[in-house]
């Protein structure tokens, strides 16, 4: 494979997050290397989504820090995260149901649009050129995800598997360097999962995008990830390449439901 795992791009140090008395994450540390596929797994309620929300600044941890490409963020927020090249998809798809696939993916370009509202309203000069360039990028995403046939279909009319794909498309339109995927394959059938796996691998391979994903399907995780972090009750109980994690006794007991 020509894909080369690079330096540490994202480093989480001693992150703790609690909501009132509930400890969602306790002293979690792990790092993500450039170009790698990093999975976060764990039973329900283990704190996986919270972890993702900490990374892109939706939640602010009470303790710990995030180091992104050498820059320390003790107070990350979603805007800063997006500007730093982090984009994400959502567990319960958060698309604009009444808008077409094309327009939804176009919203992924929002951060990169420079022209102002007035220029856009008149579709004049630079605004026009800019929109055409963004549209061309969006078309590349559409081609990449093979969703040409639903380009103009309102998202609300699409089956679930395709909506997930559009969600990924919007995240890709940002041309992210780090992509956070929150259960990209939840609720899909085997064929849809296979497609989604292929897209994730292709994104990683062709664009060199670093991917952090949460997933429940163990077979998928073990197949496509380079390294896996295992959380249970907000604590890290395992970290390493899939084979290591698979044989880790703590992980096995967490998944088989042995007494803690």
């Amino acid at each position, binding site marked *: *494979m*020509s894909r080369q795992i690079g330096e540490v791009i994202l480093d989480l140090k001693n992150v703790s997050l609690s909501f009132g008395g509930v400890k969602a994450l306790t002293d979690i540390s792990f790092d993500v290397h450039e170009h790698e596929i990093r999975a976060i797994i764990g039973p329900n309620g283990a704190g996986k989504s919270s972890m993702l929300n900490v990374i892109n600044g939706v939640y602010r941890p009470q303790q710990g820090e995030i180091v992104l490409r050498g820059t320390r963020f003790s107070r990350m927020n979603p805007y800063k995260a997006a500007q730093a090249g982090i984009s994400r998809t959502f567990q319960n798809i958060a698309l604009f149901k009444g808008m077409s696939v094309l327009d939804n993916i176009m919203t992924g370009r929002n951060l990169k649009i420079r022209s102002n509202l007035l220029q856009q309203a008149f579709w004049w000069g630079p605004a026009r050129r800019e929109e055409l360039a963004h*549209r*061309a990028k969006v*078309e*590349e995403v*559409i*081609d*990449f995800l*093979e969703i*040409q*046939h639903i*380009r*103009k279909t309102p998202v609300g009319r699409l089956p679930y598997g395709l909506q997930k794909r559009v969600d990924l498309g919007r995240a890709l339109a940002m041309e992210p360097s780090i992509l956070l995927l929150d259960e990209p394959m939840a609720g899909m059938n085997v*064929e849809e999962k*296979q497609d989604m796996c292929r897209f994730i691998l*292709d994104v990683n*391979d*062709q664009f060199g995008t670093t991917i952090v994903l949460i997933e429940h399907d163990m077979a998928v995780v073990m197949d496509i990830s380079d390294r896996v972090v295992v959380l249970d009750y907000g604590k890290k109980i395992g970290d390493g390449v899939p084979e290591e994690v698979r044989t880790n006794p703590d992980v096995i007991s967490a998944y088989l439901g042995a007494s803690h």
Partner: protein
Amino acid sequence: MAESLYGPVPETFPRWLLRHARERGGQPAMREKDLGIWQSWTWQQVADEVRALACGLIELGFQRGQNLAVVGDNRPRMYMMMTAVQCLGGVPLPLYQDAVADELLFVLLDAEVRFLFVEDQEQVDKVLEILPQLPALRHLFYDDARGMRHYTQAFIHDVRELLAMGRLHNANHPDLLDSEIERGVGDDVSVMLYTSGTTGRPKGVRLTHHAFISAARGGAEFDRLTADEEILSYLPMAWVGDHLFSFAQALVTGFTINCPESAETVMTDMREIGPTYYFAPPRVFENLLTQVMIRMEDASAIKQKMFHFFMAVARRCGAEILDGRPVPLGDRLLYAMGNWLVYGPLKNVLGMSRIRVAYTAGAAIGPDLFRFYRSIGINLKQLYGQTETCAYVCLQPDGQIKFDSVGKPAPGVEVRIADNGEILVKGPMLLQEYYKRPEATAEALDADGYFMTGDAGLFDDDGHLKIIDRAKDVGKLANGAMYAPNYIENKLKFFPYIKEAVVFGAGRERVCAFINIDLGAVGNWAERRGLAYSGYTDLAGKTEVQGLIQECLEKVNHELLAEGALADSQIHRFLILHKELDPDDDELTRTRKVRRNFVAEKYAVLIEALYSDRRSQFIETAVKFEDGRQGKVAADLAILEAKSFAVSGRATR
């Protein structure tokens, strides 16, 4: 036909290409929708790219007479590659893009393919899977570079490398290709197409430039096609019809071919292009109509009323107006209004607003379906032909349309009916031979040079040819009455709820049938009745669905009774199959024709049950999924009785 509007007729397709590049170099020859935009190639650009491809092939050692296989969706470069191969006196060999590796293997070995051009990674992977069995393969080119970065094998090339190599070669030897093209003559083989193989393994049909050019020109003159036609090229390139319409006729008349963005976008792309010349097998017309009807059922009451009112008007006089026959003034006015309110918008939605000539062939088309399209003003006609005859035997002339005939012999074609009812044809469009199968060639051509089509047919009083069935399929029931299975199956398939039917009865006392329901139409029917179902097998097993199918069968029995000679072919018992017949399971050919003997063998236990007194039968079947994995489907099938009608003077039960 020796002279055309522009002087002598070029003998080979590459010469036609050079002529169009000279005469209409700036006109669009091909379009393809890519990244949401229609990209076009002018005739000059096509000629340049073909030149580069051909020179690249010379550089890699491609020899005269060698075969080059092409596997992929309809893409401009795939068509260009075929012409490039022809420039060098080679034979392009388009293959079905959805063929599984095993099927490819057979053809690639049979044709001793050394050069292979495929569309994308999916096809490359398929070839790599069978690579150890292909010692002759030297070079594999791909068109779409996506996902191909890690394929480092030396024999796999991006087609852009071939183009670059060819441009360099052409710069060094600028006259070489022209002299190669000069060496080509009309009697050279221009293409090899494998027959779908309803019977046995596929055979490579070799057709000359002369044959295809004669067929293409004959058809073009018959329908007065011009260089201004637009056509959507979306049917498999391996199929003779696509080769005739998208390749041969485009090169002979100079019209523009348009390649859709993907197989799923065909309907949208068709709307955008608005083809003037269109070809589709009956099932495509049927799917379109089903979609229209389903959407109409969701329309508001006023729209539904309007639709049904004007469709009744169209049924009454639409086809007559299209054929230029006399129609009362009142109807004409109503039709004009309907055209404004219903037919026009409908045609627009279907992308058929600009169609001058549309053809269907490959299977029988239902009379209602056929009349529907004609009545809304689409000049839909039927043609008859096979791979061995460049799909050019009979055509329906404008204004002389019958749904149950395939028209008159095309210009330059002689048609005769043999004593056993078999249709024999002769003309310039006949095949040269079956590749490496002299005995099969000898069997197919009789002593007078007529090709034996294997179809049974007859001429009606107006000189129109009517196809009844495959000659060898026309059999007899135990009591000696005529039995034409395809004829009955087609009648069944005319119902929107029935997707496939296989009937049995040769040499037996009674006729029985297997039915495949149409998941879309029956699913919709079930939804409207609030019937819940989980999938095909579940839906097919519902008592309500069985009742629905039973009604259809009883209507067919009624029609068969009325046909006299076929009254004994009424269907007595039937069952609804638990899985859809599928080419991946070898039950259908790639062109979706039922392989009767294979099905009979595979489901022998079901046939036995049909002819017993049993009320149900358990069956378990292995199925192949699209990704090549195997699975099993099992079900307990109910065996049902259809009411049959007494033939006068005799009891049938």
